[in-house]
C-alpha cells in the first residue's frame, strides 16, 4: 500500500495533474500567454448567444438564464438577457445603461466604483486582456481542445467574493468559450458562449440606449 501511495504521489507530480478534471498544467505558460494576448489584440468584435447558470448551495437547481452578447473593441459591451426575463446592460466607455423591462437607467461608471469594477472585469474576461491584469495570479492548464486560464485575485477585497475565475479558450482561435466565476463558499456562475461570430461589423447604435 505504501509503495502504491508513493508511486501515485510521484507520478502525480510528473504528469502535473490539476484540480481541474481532464486538464494538466501548461509546460510553457509564457508561450500560451503570448498567443492569447495576440488573439486578444486581433479581437475587434464578438457576437454570441450565451447560457448562464447560477449555482447557489442553498438551491437544489441552478438558476438558468440565456440571451445575447455583443462586444466591440475597445470598450463597448451589450448583455441582453432574454429568458426567463428581459434585462439589458449596455456599457460604452464610462457610460452604462440598464433596462430592466420597466425603466432605463443610466450610470456613470467613473463615479460608481462598483459598476466600474464589474465593467472592467466583464470586458477584460471576454476580450481576454484580463490576462494582462496585475490584480490576478494566473495559472494555465490545457487539454486536447482547450486552454484554461485560472485567475486568482490578489486583493483581499476581491478574495472576499471571488475565489477564482476560470476562462476556457478554444486552442484553435483562442476565443473565450466559457467563464466560471467561483466564489469562496462554493457558489459559482457559469457562462457558456455559443453561435459565436468573431470580428463581424456591429453598428455603434447597438451600444447606445435612448
Amino acid at each position, binding site marked *: 500500500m505504501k509503495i502504491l501511495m508513493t508511486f501515485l504521489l510521484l507520478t502525480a507530480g510528473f504528469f502535473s495533474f490539476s484540480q481541474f478534471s481532464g486538464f494538466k498544467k501548461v509546460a510553457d505558460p509564457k508561450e500560451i500567454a503570448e498567443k492569447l494576448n495576440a488573439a486578444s489584440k486581433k479581437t475587434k468584435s464578438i457576437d454570441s448567444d450565451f447560457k448562464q447558470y*447560477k449555482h447557489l448551495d442553498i438551491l437544489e437547481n441552478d438558476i438558468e438564464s440565456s440571451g445575447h452578447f455583443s462586444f466591440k473593441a475597445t470598450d463597448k459591451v451589450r448583455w441582453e438577457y432574454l429568458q426567463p*426575463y428581459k434585462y439589458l446592460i449596455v456599457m460604452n466607455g464610462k457610460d452604462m445603461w440598464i433596462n*430592466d423591462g420597466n425603466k432605463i437607467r443610466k450610470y456613470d461608471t467613473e463615479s*460608481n466604483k*462598483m459598476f466600474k469594477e464589474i465593467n472592467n472585469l*466583464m470586458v477584460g474576461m471576454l476580450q481576454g486582456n484580463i490576462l494582462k491584469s496585475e490584480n490576478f495570479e494566473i495559472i494555465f492548464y490545457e487539454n486536447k481542445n482547450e486552454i484554461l486560464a485560472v485567475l486568482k485575485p490578489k486583493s483581499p477585497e476581491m478574495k472576499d*467574493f471571488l475565489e477564482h475565475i476560470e476562462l476556457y479558450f478554444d486552442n484553435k482561435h483562442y476565443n473565450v468559450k466559457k467563464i466560471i466565476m467561483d466564489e469562496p*463558499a462554493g457558489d459559482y456562475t457559469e457562462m457558456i458562449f455559443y453561435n459565436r461570430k468573431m470580428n463581424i461589423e456591429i453598428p455603434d447604435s447597438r451600444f447606445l440606449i435612448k
Partner: protein
Amino acid sequence: MKKAIPVILILFLQSCAAGKFELPNEQFEFKKILSDTSKPYIYRARLKIYDKEFSGLIIIKTGSETHRIVFINEVGMKFFDIELLKNTYKVHNIFEPLNKKMFVKLLVSDFSFILMNNLQNPFKIAKVKEPEITAVKPGKIKEIYFLNRNTLLPESAMKYSVIRKKVFLSYQNYKNDVPGIINLRHKGIKFEIKLIFIK
C-alpha cells in the same frame, strides 16, 4: 424645548395608535408569507439606496426558524448573502462597497419586517373595519400588519419606533399565498426595496 419635542411626538404617536385600533381579547392565527421550507422563492429585485440603485435577483430560502436572503446581480455576482436567525443574523458574504454596519442592520431589520419575523402565532389582533384585520406587535418598535380577513395574509404593514422612523410595506398580486409584488420604503431614509416574484 429640544427634549420636549420627542416626548410630544411619542405621546402623539401613542394616542394615534390607541385611538385607531381597539384591542379585543381575541387570538388569531395568521399566515406568514414565504414560509414553505421545501422550495426557494426567487424575486426580481431593485434596491434604491440614496442616489444608487442595485438590481438583480433576490432568493429567499426559508428554514425552520431561519431565512437565507441572497441578492445577486444579473451577471451572477453576489451583492449580499445574509441569514436571519432567531434573534440574530449571520452575514455569509457582502460585496465590499455595501459592507457598512448601518446598511447591514437596515437590511436585517427590513427583511425581518417583510418576512413577519417579529410576530408570534397565535397573535392578539386589533379590530378594524372590514375587509381587513390588524395584527400589532407590542413593544418598543411597533409593527402593524393589515391582514386580509379572508386569506389571513398581509396586504400592507407599517413600522414606527419611538424616534418616529417610519417604514411602509405593501404586498400585492398574491398567487397561491405568495405575494407577486412587495414594496418597502422608508420615511426619512432614502431606502427602498421592490421585489417582483419570478418563481
